[in-house]
């Protein structure tokens, strides 16, 4: 560690360049990652709005409908399911008839089909649910906005892939830049490395200080980048609160863990900063390995 700190001081401009590049990339990745998670959470929230309405044949027994409902609930794909019986449907009809007595007089609850209103946890489940319902013998009609769901899913996927491509490009750019910088450092210490080799230093002994230096610089950069990001969030919070006042809560589920995206939650910010630091450390490790591969026998 002490040796690495001395080496950082011995090549101040290269070290500063590496630090500044990584601060910029960390900040950019944090901003893009958090923006993306926010958009995905927003889309997720919109995606869960579309619902399936399944109408059963008027004479279907309630027990049959409840059996279908139980099956759906047990599938763990359902966010919400509401049973609308004949009486409730008739009440709704009367409300929509707006007091027109002749229309109300000509109808009775028996002609209204019982139905289930279903909201899925994720829009991708809707098609499966609809297919299952269509196969049930007592189902008369299944309604859901297939086009809207497909469009939302396609937008979400496009955003995910765009961000993956952007972060991939940033990672590649950073790897190339850091590799070049590390190569400069190696060139400055070429004679020293030759002496170590002649003294019998192993490749691990020679490359270890370069890895330590890289990880020190990356950790410092990551922390500065995270600091700037968190500072920016605090600074923007009043404006964002006003702008997003209609949205009370947004969350996003990733690998089974639900992150609260809005309002900010310290855990979500911590996870994003931690993941970014981990990504930057991986990038740093790859670039150091590329730069020092000559010594990795």
């Amino acid at each position, binding site marked *: 560690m002490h040796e690495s700190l001395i080496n950082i001081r011995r090549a101040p401009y290269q070290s500063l360049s590496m630090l500044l590049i990584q601060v910029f990339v960390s900040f950019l990745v944090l901003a893009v990652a958090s923006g993306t998670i926010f958009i995905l959470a927003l889309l997720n929230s919109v995606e869960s709005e579309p619902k399936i309405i399944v109408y059963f044949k008027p004479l279907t027994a309630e027990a049959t409908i409840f059996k279908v409902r139980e099956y759906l609930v047990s599938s763990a794909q359902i966010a919400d399911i509401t049973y609308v019986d004949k009486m409730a449907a008739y009440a709704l009809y009367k409300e929509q008839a707006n007091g027109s007595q002749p229309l109300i007089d000509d109808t009775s609850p028996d002609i209204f089909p019982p139905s289930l209103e279903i909201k899925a946890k994720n829009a991708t489940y809707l098609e499966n649910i609809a297919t299952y319902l269509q196969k049930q013998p007592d189902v008369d009609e299944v309604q859901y906005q297939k086009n809207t769901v497909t469009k939302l899913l396609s937008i979400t996927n496009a955003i995910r892939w765009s961000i993956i491509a952007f972060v991939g490009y940033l990672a590649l750019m950073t790897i190339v830049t850091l590799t070049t910088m590390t190569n400069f450092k190696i060139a400055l210490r070429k004679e*020293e490395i030759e002496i170590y080799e002649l003294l019998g*230093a192993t490749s691990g002994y020679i490359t270890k200080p370069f890895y330590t230096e890289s990880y020190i610089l990356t950790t410092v950069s990551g922390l500065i980048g995270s600091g700037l990001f968190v500072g920016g969030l605090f600074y923007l919070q009043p404006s964002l609160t006003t702008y997003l006042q209609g949205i009370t809560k947004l969350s996003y589920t990733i690998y089974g863990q639900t992150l609260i995206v809005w309002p900010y939650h310290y855990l979500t910010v911590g996870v994003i900063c931690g993941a970014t630091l981990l990504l930057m450390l991986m990038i740093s490790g790859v670039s150091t390995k590329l730069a020092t591969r000559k010594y990795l026998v």
Partner: protein
Amino acid sequence: MVSFHDVTIAFGNGVIALSNASFEVPQNDFVFLVGQSGAGKSTILNSIMGLHRPKTGTIEVGKSGTKVGRIKGKKLALLRQDIGFVFQDFKILPHKNIFENVLVALTVKNISPNLYKPEVMSVLKSVGLQDRLYEFPIQLSAGERQRVAIARALAGGRQIILADEPTGNLDPKTTWEIMKIFTSLAGQRTIIIATHNNDVVTSLKKRIITLEHGKIKSDST
């Protein structure tokens, strides 16, 4: 022990640097390699260090007779950990003080840190620099820098000492001081010195291998 069996070393441009060389240096022997520039003295030293690989023949180094031409990576590093080198241009690290320069020879060998200071002090005492531990190379004369290089070559119990023109940059008085250090090690380590300095070679009456155009011309004691 160092032994060359019919060794030919050729460079990439086709130049034959050493041709069918055979000789043996027993353990703790003291040998001078002499000859004109380009005769193959440095090539012999470099090939013992594994810097050149023989085109034909074998080079065996150390008690276990490690075949240098066939090893690389960690095995080559381990072999070099038993060899100390001294060059005409000293090859000491300018940003490290005397203590740290010698310490490097121990840290590459993974020697216990508890032994660092006594070992460094011991080898620096043998070259007369035990009171100047924290001075930097820029503060030393050429002779003193070479003494640091010798101390580093001795550190960690390295059994084979290779010196390539160790007195080439030194005045006559300092040359004799340095040679005195080498002769004090005779019988304790295997020492091979490549030199142009005929005065030193003739005065010390040690084994001499004479090279000419990459071939061994004579091998005498």
